[in-house]
């Protein structure tokens, strides 16, 4: 019985949150890696682009709530996803047309692209803050929990409760759906194949008659979907605050590089690697161990490897270690 209790504690406090957080990171990391593979630059505006899409979801949620439109026990924000995605894609295409395309045609070095994306980051941040302001916003409605701790205890008769927030379940399910559709698209359809060809060898792809404009357009469309959905899921799970989204760029980058930048599947796993590392290393194992060892050996300290203050630092350290040992990432990067 104690063993099951220990497992439940671990699942409740580490595995479920890490799965949800990992899914959010994974979506962002695939976004980064896709831009890197096809358009060939590190996009420093990642966090703010995700924030931009989420901003529309927040505003539309408020609007739908005011006119009484909703999804019952599901959050209203799910209803706003298509509209937010359209706005996001329009914004990205606008930015691409006025900013990035010029450098793409000139074949500028990646560093210049990165600097330009810093400029885009500044502008996007300004637009977001001018429209919605910098404050913290919660836009979750509907049923909060699928499984409550007390219900679980009654059901199983265990000491420890297992909670499953609806946002966590939605995050994991939506991520799986989006990611599987995306992989199907990249690997099985003709357009996806042409994208991979373009990413692999641009000149050869052009020779085979692949239209670069179309590839770029499709890339931005997929990127827009990933960024918006990732941002909305993160906002539903935690809350929406522009500054936090900007900071999230860093673990997302870490996830993309750990997985092998340019490799979507690597980025997908990288998100979970980073999330599990962050949460497992900063979790206090006291209660978990208390169930496993006899009472006399119960630990006094929190049994924490690192304090939660270092949550971000953990993922960055993993990145540094990966860069040292295997700079191309866990999976070989560079092409999709």
């Amino acid at each position, binding site marked *: 019985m104690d063993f099951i209790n220990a497992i439940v504690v671990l699942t409740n406090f580490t595995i479920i949150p890490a799965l949800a957080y990992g899914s959010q990171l994974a979506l962002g990391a695939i976004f980064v890696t896709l831009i890197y593979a096809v358009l060939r*630059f590190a996009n*420093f505006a990642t966090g703010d682009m995700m924030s931009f899409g989420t901003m529309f979801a927040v505003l539309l949620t408020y609007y739908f709530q005011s006119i009484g439109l909703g999804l019952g026990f599901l959050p209203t924000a799910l209803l706003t996803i298509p509209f937010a995605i359209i706005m996001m894609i329009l914004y990205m295409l606008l930015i691409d047309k006025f900013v990035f395309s010029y450098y793409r045609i000139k074949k500028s070095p990646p560093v210049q692209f*990165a600097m330009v994306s810093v400029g*885009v980051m*500044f502008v996007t*941040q300004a637009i977001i803050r001018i429209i919605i302001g910098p404050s913290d916003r919660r836009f979750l409605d509907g049923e909060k929990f699928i499984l409550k701790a007390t219900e679980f205890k009654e059901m199983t008769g265990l000491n420890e409760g297992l909670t499953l927030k609806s946002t966590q379940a939605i995050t994991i399910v939506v991520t799986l759906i989006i990611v599987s559709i995306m992989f199907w698209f990249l690997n099985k359809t003709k357009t996806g194949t042409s994208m991979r060809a373009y990413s692999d060898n641009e000149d050869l792809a052009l020779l085979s008659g692949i239209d670069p404009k179309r590839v770029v357009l499709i890339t931005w469309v997929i990127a827009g979907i990933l960024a918006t959905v990732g941002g909305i899921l993160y906002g539903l799970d935690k809350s929406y605050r522009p500054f936090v989204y900007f900071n999230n760029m860093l673990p997302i980058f870490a996830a993309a590089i750990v997985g092998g930048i340019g490799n979507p599947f690597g980025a997908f796993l990288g998100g979970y690697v980073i999330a599990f590392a962050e949460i497992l290393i900063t979790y206090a194992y006291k209660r978990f161990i208390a169930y496993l060892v006899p009472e006399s050996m119960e630990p006094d300290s929190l049994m924490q490897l690192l304090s939660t203050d*270092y949550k971000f*630092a953990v993922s960055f*350290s993993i990145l540094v270690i990966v860069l040292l040992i295997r700079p191309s990432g866990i999976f070989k990067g560079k092409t999709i």
Partner: protein
Amino acid sequence: MRKYSNIIAAYSIMLVLILLVGIFQSWSIALTILNYCLISAVMTIGANIQWGYAGLINFGIMGYTALGGLAVVLVSVDPVQQAWQAGGLNILICFWIIVVMVVLIRYLLKYFNKSKYRTYGIAFVIIGGILLLRLTATPGIEAIEAVDPAKTGFLGGMGLPVLFSWIGGAFLAGGLAFVVGKIALGLRADYLAIATLLIAEIVVSIIKHEEWLARGVKNVIGLKRPAPYEIDLQTSQWFINLVEKFHSKKLSMINSITERQDALSQFVIDASSVYVKLCFTGLFLSVVIVLLIVTQKALYSPWGRKMRAIRDNEEAASAMGKNIVKEHLFIFILGSAIVGIAGAMMVTNDGLFTPGSYRPMRYTFVIWVMVIVGGTGNNFGAILGGFVVWFLWVEAAPMALFLINLFTSHLPETNSVRVHLIESAPYFRFLVIGIGLLTIMRYRPKGILPEKIEIK
């Protein structure tokens, strides 16, 4: 002379802008802006050495700035004797454990061939070392943080004059740059940018959360100053006499004695803050001028030519027998050390150390915008970039507010659009900086004052 006309014109415009702030807002604000411009200029000189001379992209400027700030605390604050007695020994032991660990790992790497056993050995040293560190450090840290937590709760510094800390900042930042350079300099440009940014985040989070070191997010206030204090000036006779002489015309217009006395004391208060800021301006200006002369000399020296050769064509330079790895590491350390000086200068200017305020937006990206806008590879350009961008960063909000009021003046006071825009005026600075950067990148990719290389 014509060669310099661009530079002179650009700097004159900048000077006029700052003077205008002095006339329209106040001299105190103008001097604050000028001081920060000078600090930013030091940072941009550092970043420009790395990016402009050698083509190394360092997004970790935030980390080096924070280390410079830390140096001020570690050098100038008086040591907290109680804390040293409580836990100083543990911290010293920890320091030695780290040294032993590093030596052991180096020994393993040097004298053993690459094998499974060596990897296990290194892993064993690291894990054992970390366990040992935790065991010794935890009681010491707890003891130190318990010493009068509201006021101290940290080890304090060495109690030296604050100007020494500027050198200390350079050494700390240079030391970090050595480690980072060893780890990351082999990476491709955009990887290097991300890696340095994330390492800087790690450094800042350590400074933020290790409270025994510099109080972390509880901040250290009341740091020493290389300039007199306002309150001392206001009570010293020579200063009051000076102010009286300066304002004699205005004072003689006032008839009543009490009113004249009030006016004089007001003038003294204003003048004291201006005087202190002028002292700082003098110090900062001398640092900027010294750095400018040294970097200009270096740029045109054989060393500068070598760096440009490496930047423009690594393979060719390497074929000519230049050690690229070594040169890159050296210039990375040099630039970071200069950024460290700037960090120390900034904390000295503020008089307080707030680790929570080190954010990548302000201390990495804005500095990079300065370098790009000003002109990469050109020291005058980099300094000008520091001035222009900092000026915009500070003055964008008041200017935006003015424009919003102008364009919405036909709307009623309570109009929701107007109210919303006025509330969001501070965020127009991001817009101005972003659009400025994008415009410069597009239409003048080498910056306002581009790099001009002539062989003398």
